[in-house]
């Protein structure tokens, strides 16, 4: 019964959540907007982002690269997704239909789904590991049991999350403020213990564990981690920002509370990683805080990570329910399984592999979201002159302007694929290899990967639209620019 009620509530939220919001409903003032964006921006995965940067950079350079990367990544997301959502009161998934097509926008839902699964794996495995490490530090379990206890804690956490979301978790999404407070407290405890125990000098002198020795390459690798991870705010921008009254009002909350906050909170992970030589926050935090404070930190990390994960699962489920085919055919517990099942499989069988390749996941976010941002910027500003046809956003038939070819815009998918290939050429997320070399100079170390990918995907999309979509009268470009 509860599942059925939750299901209907979710279907309505998913459907109505994607509908345009009228001006009378856009009632968030500047303070409200700062509060909501800050509570979303202060999330526990930032610790892992900072831990990853500690692989390459010292505290001073890491601080600069993280702040800069966070702002640059957020610049592209804000430019691409914010004005369209505020002008028309629509979420990012609906706003992606003019570029990917009425049915092709399912790609946006898929990338949202995949990125949240990745982030949830990080949060849940991190919590399992932190708990096991504290238990080992307290002598309650032996070292050889750390791995299995970590998996058990992760699976129990996933089971709790599953029960909460299928039981009707409407209230969960409203608790983001308390989750942000828990994240900030956990970070504050670790930072205080870190500075009081090891001192600022130790942190400043900390050497990155996996630096290549090439200053430019290390500097840009650290910068790129932040650009790439912050780009993954793209699917959420519209849902948050469309309640704002104007672009002017929403710009700074977006840049500061979503972008900069990710970088600033991540600094705790960077400093902890450098002070202990351990980039994994689940280990470094416990090493810093010791047993008793470690227990306190684990409680807050647990609240923060589990809360963040549940909000993420819920957002993913709502996203999946926006696919018209899933809306009434897929039951709520099954959708919950789709959102949590992959996390459980990874946590149970591949947790070490996943956490050893956490950096690959972060760079892969850039590979996926950079072309999307480039295409949206070109489509909305240059090709459509900031004008959309709102009824066509909800029309899946061939009468809708965004039907393109069977509901899919070939130009956007080709440009996205080319952008991904270009990113891979500059920086392979799996092997970290830089294939674009000119006269023995690694091109990535001067231009990074996400920024040129945004530009290349955008330019290619503009060319393809000019030579393909517009002459064939696909996508409503002539009607909208008239």
């Amino acid at each position, binding site marked *: 019964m509860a599942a059925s009620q939750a299901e209907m509530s979710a279907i309505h939220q998913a*459907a109505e959540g994607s509908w345009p919001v009228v001006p009378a409903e856009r009632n968030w003032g500047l303070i409200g907007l700062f509060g909501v964006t800050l509570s979303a921006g202060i999330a526990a995965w930032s610790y892992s982002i900072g831990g990853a940067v500690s692989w390459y950079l010292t505290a*001073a350079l890491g601080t600069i690269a993280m702040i800069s990367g966070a702002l640059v990544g957020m610049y592209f997301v804000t430019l691409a997704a914010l004005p369209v959502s505020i002008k028309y009161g629509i979420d990012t998934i609906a706003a992606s239909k003019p570029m990917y097509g009425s049915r092709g926008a399912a790609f946006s839902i898929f990338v949202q789904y995949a990125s949240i699964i990745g982030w949830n794996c990080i949060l849940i495995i991190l919590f399992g590991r932190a708990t096991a490490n504290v238990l080992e530090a307290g002598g309650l379990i032996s070292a050889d049991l750390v791995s299995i206890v970590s998996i058990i804690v992760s699976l129990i956490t996933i089971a709790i999350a599953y029960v909460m979301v299928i039981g009707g978790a409407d209230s969960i999404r409203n608790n983001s403020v308390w989750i942000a407070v828990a994240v900030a407290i956990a970070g504050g405890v670790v930072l205080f213990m870190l500075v009081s125990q090891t001192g600022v000098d130790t942190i400043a002198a900390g050497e990155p564990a996996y630096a290549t020795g090439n200053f430019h390459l290390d500097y840009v690798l650290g910068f790129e981690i932040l650009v790439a991870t912050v780009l993954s705010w793209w699917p959420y921008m519209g849902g948050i920002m469309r309640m704002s*009254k104007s672009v002017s009002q929403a710009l700074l909350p977006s840049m500061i509370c979503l972008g900069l906050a990710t970088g600033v909170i991540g600094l705790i992970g960077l400093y902890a990683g450098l002070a202990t030589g351990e980039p994994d926050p689940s280990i470094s935090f416990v090493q810093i805080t010791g047993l008793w404070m470690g227990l306190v930190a684990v409680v807050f990390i647990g609240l923060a990570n589990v809360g963040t994960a549940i909000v993420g699962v819920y957002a993913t489920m709502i996203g999946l329910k926006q696919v018209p085919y899933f809306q009434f055919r897929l039951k709520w517990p099954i959708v919950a399984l789709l959102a949590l099942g992959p996390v459980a499989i990874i946590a149970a069988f591949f947790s070490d592999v996943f956490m050893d390749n956490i950096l690959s996941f972060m760079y892969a976010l850039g590979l996926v979201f950079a072309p999307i941002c480039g295409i949206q910027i070109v489509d909305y500003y240059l090709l459509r002159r900031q004008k959309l046809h709102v009824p066509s956003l909800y029309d899946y038939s061939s009468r809708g302007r965004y039907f393109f070819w069977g509901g899919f815009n070939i130009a956007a998918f080709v440009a996205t694929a080319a952008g991904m290939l270009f990113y891979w050429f500059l920086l392979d997320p799996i092997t970290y290899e830089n294939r674009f070399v000119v006269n023995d100079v690694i091109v990535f170390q001067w231009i990074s990967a996400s920024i040129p990918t945004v530009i290349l995907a955008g330019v290619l999309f503009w060319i393809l639209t000019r030579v393909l979509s517009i002459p064939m009268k696909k996508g409503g470009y002539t009607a909208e620019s008239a």
Partner: protein
Amino acid sequence: MATQDEAELQRLLQERLQLVDSDPEYEGAEPTSGDQLLLAVVGLVIPAILMIGGWVLYGG
């Protein structure tokens, strides 16, 4: 049941689209040049200065 709900959602969507269509105030303002400038300063110029500063201070 599902068909009924589907039809109900369709009806509500059409109502919402009509509301949008009849509201002359529906479309919010586009970003001004000042907005674009502020965004570029915070998102591109400041990070560029920081990165170049880090390069000059620690890169030598």
